[in-house]
């Protein structure tokens, strides 16, 4: 069980939205975590790599700072499955976002805000597939 936390949920959502605005106003880019992550997987350590490193260091600092300020208790973190499930999940998330050009932030927030037809389709599809996956795992006695 996890508790429904609409206030911190909404507050966190606003922070994510502000992050997207800062990136767009400053550098004209969509805030997409999978694209930023993918850009780190390179051997060309130039500007396109460096700015992504700065964003990711910021993400880590933002997460650590939030916990330090008492806005989140890291002890509440619980993982859903076995190590094998995590590896399979990671491989699929990496492959799927590389193929579909986006994830929950790029398509699910920035793309929907721009009313991009591609992002509307992508978000609908990954939400539906994830819901079916959880149903299969939790209620049909799967892995």
């Amino acid at each position: 069980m996890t508790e429904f936390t609409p206030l911190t949920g909404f507050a966190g959502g606003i922070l994510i939205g502000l992050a997207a605005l800062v990136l767009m106003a400053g550098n004209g880019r969509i805030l997409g975590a999978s694209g930023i992550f993918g850009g780190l997987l390179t051997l060309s350590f130039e500007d396109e790599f460096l700015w992504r490193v700065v964003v990711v260091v910021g993400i880590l600092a933002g997460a650590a700072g939030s916990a330090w300020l008492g806005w989140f208790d890291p002890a509440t973190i619980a993982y859903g499955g076995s190590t094998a499930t995590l590896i399979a999940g990671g491989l699929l998330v990496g492959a799927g976002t590389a193929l579909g050009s986006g994830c929950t932030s790029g398509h699910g927030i920035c793309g929907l805000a721009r009313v991009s037809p591609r992002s509307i389709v992508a978000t609908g599809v990954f939400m539906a597939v994830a819901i079916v996956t959880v149903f299969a795992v939790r209620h049909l006695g799967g892995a």
Partner: protein
Amino acid sequence: MGRFLSFALAGLLFGAGVTVSGMVNPMKVLNFLDFLGTWDPTLITVMGGGLVVTFIGYRIILRRARPLFAGSFQLPGTRIIDAKLVGGAVIFGLGWGLSGFCPAPAMASLVFGNIQSLIFVAAMAAGTLAMRAILHRPPSQKELAEVEG
């Protein structure tokens, strides 16, 4: 300098957002996806908060001629809904549903020092590189013939 500070600020806000909202906890995401079980609707409020801000903010920002620290806005140009987009979303949805992790919370959760997050992010890197290798592989003669046919 301002340019790099803006990247750092975007990262800080992003990391704080996924953490404060609880999205760094995969169980919370899995419970959101579990309508028929232990449903936790929090993710809707996160997306709602993010969308309210970006929907309004993008409209104001994109009226400007250019961003503060770059020559132009770099918005995705393609509008084509193809098999790559849908297939990618299916694969991502499968991984998200299995793990409860999407890329930003997975990266952010690394600071909490759990080995599970590290395993997930390493697998995510491997998946990204594998897909990139598949996409950039030169097409076979058979595929070229099919495209032309």
